[in-house]
């Protein structure tokens, strides 16, 4: 549970700052710090087991069937990062208390900070790759929130957007890599993955995995050429920079490389990509850092350079290099966080970060200046400081390289050059800011910061010095534990001490320091050289690229969807055509082996009628009434063909739906424009559409024929066998509907109800123009409800209801059932509407149709739930036979109640649609409209 609690405590602590923000700045800070402090204590309490390399794992099942679990583990590497995240996090919380002004929303800032802290802890503690990726993306999101904290500044918004885009896109590449890794090795567990290095390296996907993986790591750790986002992220408040951009977030990339070092490294591919990228990043970062006038800009590029150094070390083919990488992770975090905080103090107390104005601050803030200079010395790699030790280890490792063959001597030379540049920009940070004459019109007179704002800097600087002098005592065990986690096997011999005698690495350090001093001394020439090149703003390039992409996408979207249903449908039909036709091309025979039925003249005649009626529907599509009549002929023949081909239920359903549909269309016709000009498509469009439609129709027809002439393998034998013993009904179709596939039916009547309610809503307050005359200009007939029709339909109603009751009751055994009975009832009632009008019906139908739909759905659902009360699955049916007088033996089944629900829903939905539409045609609506 330890590993989980370390994450859970800060995650729960996220709300604390929001709740305590009103307690004032001190109270809020104090309360906010509690959760990370508790987590830090939990982490420290696990120290002995971590140092003895006892794994601490907590796993919870998540989706066991997919082999996914929520799993956390704490090993040396996770411990090291946990220490950095929580330790520096606490210092940053203290520092931010003094950095933020009264106008800043402190609760929100701390909440974001803790959110980020939790996400980062999640990354380093996750033992499941999907989960790791999830937290990885959370760090991108939370850092977006933190960078854009001062959201009124355009710089902050743009910088945040750039950081999110770059790291988020890298995250997607990482996800692909992690999923591929899991696929190759068959496990999602990080701990197991690390043991499968040989499998991964032997896999065909190895190259893809490494490239995608490194894309994720490089974007996060701002490696060249993805380094450009980091300087722009400096628009964040300085505590954020000190936390995210020195110690944690940007280290996530190198953490990832270190974490999967045993699984992925060890090949030429890895070494070449990683070491070269690291080397280039180190040089480019150091070079650019020298020319930045912004204090934080200098530190940002320096961070890029140092991240490059760590990457380089992870890409060098020795175990000692990996250990040096881990060591430099610690050292860089410590000195860079303190430098950022010092830069923040200078900014805070003098009002600017511009080094052209900041000069001679030593006399105004001697104490802070001393601290900053010690930290900068560590950044430069001056002896007695921690930065010196890991840098020297790096120099030593570059000497053993053979990656570049005979040109391998370039590596130590370039490393020394980068070291010299590092010394130069560190010197600039010290000399330019604290000496070098007098400050030039600063917004404020600088002075020492509040006492406690300096405490975090002091703490970190003291660490720098102590680690630099007595490294073994300070971080020996920690480094060993973390390195063990990175290498996954026994560590080679290495010595952590200040003095290793006169050797080549020492000489390289000396050369770097002297060279750096010389470079700084002649910086005028360098600045002149740098000034020759146009300063390209990454932000503008990035925003331009984003906008270009956006424009392109909008163009594609417009091309695809130009608000024309015709075009959209055309594309859709084409796509469907390709999908449906391509399998047919691979089929050798159109006709299958299934014996076919003989054609007789009745069927032939019906088919002819269908084709003619279809043609007429198309031909008359602008003469609406005629088209409707033709359409109803088509519908009739379809229902007759259902009857002919042994589907009486379908025939009954189709017939009653046909009546409802035609009434619906007639009602709608009333409102559609009587004399709308026919918008005839151009002839070539008609030809094109006809061509596509004919192609599509022929493909579907062929598909139908191919299917019909091939033998059937169906699961229906089961339904036929079990219908009577299992469902208690002989009408298999109905038993399937209300019993075997009852859950589907429940879903379908729900859709029906939703559609009816949607229509009800669409018809509400519809501003329709009601024609006063027909298309020929005749006024509507005054005799709206012919007496004869009224009388006949009224006397037919009881009969129709009786029929529907009969159809409903017999449905389980003979053609019929809830759907059909519901439609018959609905049609019978609609007939009354037609014959008598809405006003007449209004007084007689007292319930509203929404309630009927609701009741139907409720009954159907409760039948299902009812079976659960008897300890059965949802919608299990029960049936038995009873003898009634007169009727005789009669079956009662719970499926009948379910069918009642179906019946009511169908009645309610159909009437809701038709009656509401019909109501619009009457004076009823007018009165409502006027009122």
């Amino acid at each position, binding site marked *: 549970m330890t590993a989980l609690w370390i994450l859970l405590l800060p995650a729960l602590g996220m709300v604390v700052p929001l709740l305590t923000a009103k307690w004032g700045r001190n109270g809020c800070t104090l309360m906010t710090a509690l959760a990370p402090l508790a987590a830090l204590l939990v982490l420290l309490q696990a120290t002995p087991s971590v140092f003895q390399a006892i794994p601490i794992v907590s796993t919870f099942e998540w989706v066991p069937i997919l082999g996914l679990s929520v799993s956390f583990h704490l090993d040396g590497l996770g411990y090291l990062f946990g220490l950095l995240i929580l330790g520096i996090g606490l210092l940053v919380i203290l520092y931010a208390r003094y950095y933020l002004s009264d106008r800043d929303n402190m609760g929100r800032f701390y909440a974001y900070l803790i959110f980020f802290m939790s996400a980062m802890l999640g990354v380093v503690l996750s033992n499941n790759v999907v989960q790791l990726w999830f937290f990885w993306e959370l760090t991108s999101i939370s850092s977006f929130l933190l960078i854009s904290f001062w959201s009124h500044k355009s710089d902050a918004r743009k910088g945040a957007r750039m950081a999110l885009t770059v790291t988020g896109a890298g995250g997607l590449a990482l996800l692909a890599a992690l999923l591929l890794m899991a696929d190759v090795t068959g496990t999602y567990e990080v701990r197991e993955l690390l043991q499968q290095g040989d499998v991964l390296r032997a896999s065909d996907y190895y190259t893809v995995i490494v490239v995608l993986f490194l894309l994720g790591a490089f974007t996060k750790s701002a490696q060249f050429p993805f380094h450009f986002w980091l300087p722009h992220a400096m628009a964040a408040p300085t505590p954020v920079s000190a936390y995210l951009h020195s110690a944690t977030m940007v280290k996530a990339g190198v953490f990832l490389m270190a974490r999967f070092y045993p699984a992925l490294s060890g090949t030429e591919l890895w070494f070449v990509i990683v070491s070269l990228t690291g080397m280039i990043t180190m040089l480019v970062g150091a070079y650019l850092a020298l020319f930045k006038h912004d204090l934080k800009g200098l530190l940002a590029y320096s961070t890029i350079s140092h991240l490059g150094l760590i990457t380089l070390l992870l890409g060098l083919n020795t175990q000692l290099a990996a250990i040096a990488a881990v060591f430099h992770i610690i050292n860089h975090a410590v000195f860079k966080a303190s430098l950022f905080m010092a830069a923040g103090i200078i900014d805070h107390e003098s009002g600017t970060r511009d080094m052209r104005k900041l000069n001679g601050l030593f006399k105004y803030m001697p104490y802070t200046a001393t601290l900053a200079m010690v930290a900068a010395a560590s950044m430069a790699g001056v002896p007695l400081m921690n930065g010196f030790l890991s840098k020297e280890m790096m120099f030593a490792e570059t000497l053993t390289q053979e990656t570049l063959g005979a040109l391998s001597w370039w590596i130590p030379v370039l490393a020394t050059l980068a070291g010299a540049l590092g010394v130069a920009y560190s010197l600039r940070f010290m000399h330019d800011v604290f000496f070098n004459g007098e400050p030039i019109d600063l917004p404020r007179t600088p002075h020492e910061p509040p006492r406690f704002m300096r405490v975090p800097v002091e703490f970190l600087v003291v660490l720098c010095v102590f680690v630099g002098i007595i490294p073994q005592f300070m971080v020996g065990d920690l480094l060993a534990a973390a390195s063990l986690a990175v290498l996954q096997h026994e560590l080679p011999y290495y010595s952590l001490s200040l003095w290793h005698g006169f050797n080549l690495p020492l000489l390289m350090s000396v050369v770097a320091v002297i060279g750096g001093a010389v470079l700084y001394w002649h910086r005028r020439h360098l600045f002149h050289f740098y000034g020759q090149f146009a300063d390209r703003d990454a932000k503008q390039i990035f925003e331009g690229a984003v906008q270009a992409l956006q424009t392109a996408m909008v163009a594609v979207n417009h091309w695809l969807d130009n608000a024309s*249903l*015709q*075009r959209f*449908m055309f594309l859709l*039909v084409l796509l469907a055509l390709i999908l449906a036709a391509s399998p047919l091309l691979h089929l050798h025979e159109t006709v299958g082996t299934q014996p*076919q*039925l003989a054609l007789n003249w009745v*069927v*032939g005649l019906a*088919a002819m009628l269908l*084709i003619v009626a*279809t043609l007429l529907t198309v031909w008359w*599509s*602008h003469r609406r009434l005629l088209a409707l009549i033709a*359409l109803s002929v*088509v519908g009739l023949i*379809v229902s007759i063909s259902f009857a*002919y*081909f*042994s*589907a009486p*239920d*379908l025939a009954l*359903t189709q017939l009653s*739906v046909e009546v409802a*549909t035609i009434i*619906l269309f007639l009602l*709608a016709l009333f*409102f559609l424009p009587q004399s*709308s*000009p026919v*918008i005839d498509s151009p002839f070539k469009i008609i030809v094109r*559409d*006809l061509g596509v*439609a004919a192609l*599509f*129709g*022929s493909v579907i*027809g062929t*598909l*139908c*024929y191919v299917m019909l002439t091939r033998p059937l393998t*169906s699961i229906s034998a089961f*339904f*036929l066998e079990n*219908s*009577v013993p299992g469902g208690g009904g*002989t*009408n*298999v179709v109905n038993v*399937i*509907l209300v019993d075997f596939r009852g859950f*589907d039916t429940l879903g379908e009547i729900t859709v029906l109800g939703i*559609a009816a309610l*949607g229509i009800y809503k669409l018809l509400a307050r519809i*501003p*329709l123009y009601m024609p006063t005359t027909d298309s020929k200009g005749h006024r509507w007939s005054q005799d709206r409800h012919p007496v004869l029709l009224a009388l006949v339909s009224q006397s037919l109603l009881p009969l129709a209801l009786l029929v529907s009751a009969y159809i409903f009751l017999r449905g389980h*055994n003979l053609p019929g059932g809830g759907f059909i009975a519901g439609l018959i009832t609905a049609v019978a009632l609609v007939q009354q509407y037609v014959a008598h009008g809405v006003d007449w019906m209004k007084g007689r139908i007292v319930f509203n149709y929404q309630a009927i739909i609701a009741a139907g759905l409720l009954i159907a659902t409760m039948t299902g739930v009812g079976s659960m009360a008897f300890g059965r699955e949802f919608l299990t049916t029960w049936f038995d036979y009873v003898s009634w007088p007169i009727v005789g033996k009669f079956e009662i089944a719970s499926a009948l109640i379910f069918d009642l629900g179906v019946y009511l829903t169908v009645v309610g939905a159909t009437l809701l*649609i038709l009656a509401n*539409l019909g109501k619009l045609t009457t004076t009823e609506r007018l009165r409502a409209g006027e009122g």
Partner: protein
Amino acid sequence: MELMYSICVGFLTTAGVFLLLRAQTFPVVLGITLLSYAVNLFLFASGRLTVNGASIVGASEVYADPLPQALVLTAIVIGFAMTAFVLILAMRARADLGSDQVDGRSSTLRKHGNKARKERQV
């Protein structure tokens, strides 16, 4: 028989798709209706054609496949609801936009409709 059936399905599909590609709502709704006939017949055909074999236990010797029938039965009812929805949507669109066109062009008709609507509101 199978051939005739398939020709009918293909013909209904052709007519449905053609009407679906028209520029006004009413033909589109007609097209949807025709297309849903075709779809239902096609789905029904997946159980093959049987004459005199209603799937009622004990009523005949050979039974038609009941499963596609059950599927098509609900499809017919849902198809009705869908047709109704599209039709009413078209009416609503005409009422709100003053046009029954779906070809994406802003037509003279629409302008005219808007003007008419404004006049009514005045």
